[in-house]
């Protein structure tokens, strides 16, 4: 089953076509990676799919149902969640509270109950707390639950964002450069977390510059350049595609090429 499909998805900013008729089809349970040089439109594509931008043209289908133009919170309620390239942490809150916010769509108390602190709120808070701790444990941050989010190291914050997204119980998770800025050890941790997520049946769409991570973990790789599709296929197909090597790896420099092909 296709959990995410886009059909000729397009958006322009001031005359520049940032995403130009891109079709992707993500099969349920897979790791689907989107790669491309800087400025090729990867994050823009994520922002379109997660409802932050509204496409000028084309359509998005989520689990077979039309999802074009839905607001991010509506998409979240349909089981789509994401993380951000530039961290979007709730810095005023504790690590645990950050993840508790991720439980929002499962929380059932109304505003009056919340104001009056009815027994239902106490029960809800307990359930939310337990679910949030479970999500933290999945990314290895259980011991940091009571810490202030602002006190965490960069790599841990990356995992905190994943835990928070997991707390929504998504069926589709978009990870925007989860390993960016991480050292090799942190990247290993992210790799392990992604594998465990996929094992639980959650589909992962990944934007990532770390080619080793992408080639290791992906079922399919979609290559963008200048907002258009350049190639798509298995990691093996993509890494031997002449157009990809020329357009993407050529621009990106030999260092990246060496890392990808060793």
């Amino acid at each position: 089953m296709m959990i995410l499909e886009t059909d000729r998805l397009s958006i322009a900013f001031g005359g520049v076509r940032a995403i130009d008729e891109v079709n992707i089809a993500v099969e349920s349970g897979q790791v689907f990676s989107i790669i491309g040089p800087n400025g090729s439109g990867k994050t823009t594509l994520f922002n379109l799919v997660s409802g932050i931008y509204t496409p000028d043209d084309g359509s998005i289908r989520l689990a077979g149902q039309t999802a074009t133009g839905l607001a991010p919170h509506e998409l979240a309620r349909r089981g789509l969640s994401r993380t951000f390239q530039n961290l979007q942490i709730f810095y005023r809150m504790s690590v645990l509270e950050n993840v508790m916010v991720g439980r929002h769509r499962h929380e059932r108390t109304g505003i009056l109950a919340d104001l009056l602190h009815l027994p239902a709120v106490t029960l809800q808070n307990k359930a939310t707390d337990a679910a949030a701790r479970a999500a933290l444990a999945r990314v290895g941050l259980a011991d940091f639950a009571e810490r202030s989010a602002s006190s965490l190291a960069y790599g841990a914050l990356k995992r905190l964002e994943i835990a928070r997204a997991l707390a929504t119980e998504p069926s589709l998770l978009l990870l925007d450069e989860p390993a960016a800025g991480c050292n090799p050890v942190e990247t290993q941790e992210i790799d392990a977390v992604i594998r465990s997520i996929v094992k639980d049946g959650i589909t992962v769409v990944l934007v990532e510059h770390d080619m080793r991570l992408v080639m290791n973990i992906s079922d399919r790789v979609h290559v963008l350049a200048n907002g258009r599709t350049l190639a798509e296929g298995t990691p093996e197909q993509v890494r031997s595609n002449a157009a990809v090597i020329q357009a993407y790896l050529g621009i990106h420099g030999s260092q990246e090429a060496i890392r990808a092909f060793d």
Partner: protein
Amino acid sequence: MAIAAIFVSVPWFFPSAYYYRIGVLVFIFALAVAGLNLLMGFAGQVSLGHAGFLGIGAYSVAIGPTHLGMPSWFCLFAGAALSAAVAFFVGRPILRLKGHYLAVATLGFGLLVAIVLTNEAGLTGGPDGMTVPRLTLFGWSVRGSDAWYWISGTTFIGGFVLALNLMGSPTGRALQAIHDSEIAAQVLGIDVARKKLTVFIISAVYASVAGSYLALFNGHVTPDVAGFLRSIELVAMVVLGGMGSILGSLVGAGLLVVLPQALTIFHEYEQALLGLILIVFMIFLRRGIVPSVAAVIFGWRK
């Protein structure tokens, strides 16, 4: 609990009715500030026009009984309902704005209310204001600062408890999340526009009730109650006491009500001194009085 204990015990030390009067003003403003703090300190949405809701509440208990013959207590609730309705219709378009733009839009709202109150002289008495009939409850005419001390104090504690309840609830977590990152809150399934509107309405109701109390207590109301300076004063109380600290709302309101009274002995330098004290407070307790003092006592964060 501690606040309730102080609330009950403090009057034993009041040498005169004048102190009750100050106490009433502190509680009334603290109520409005607690509501504004939910909006500003907690959800991170600024309002420079909150005195507009103070004005709606105040004039509700002035106009209702005078022109329509309705009982004051009923007008207090009607005013709160009216404020909620106004907050709903004003909030929907303007809460999409962020930061400075939201500040200017709310500023415009406050000015609008003040101008309407000034110009509708037939109904409101214009710039000179109007007399507010006394509150009558079960045949008992409420007069005197001591009676109002108990009423306003009890109401503040009620509002304080509701605000604390809200902060520790799913809605409270969502609001705090909006403060730090709207976009992250959205992708986690929070309907940001709706949550902002909810807290805006709650804060408007707090301000409206405070405004009604103020008018009933003073027995007179002028458009100044909804004026720009009032709005700024409320914001100053929030920031001084501590953004996101409901206890700070009481401290902020207390300080800004008591200080000008205490400083009157300096005559013409009163305002200058008040300004200076505010500057010093903000430099040394930059997160507001209550959070900064709490940080020192509990060694919490840097």
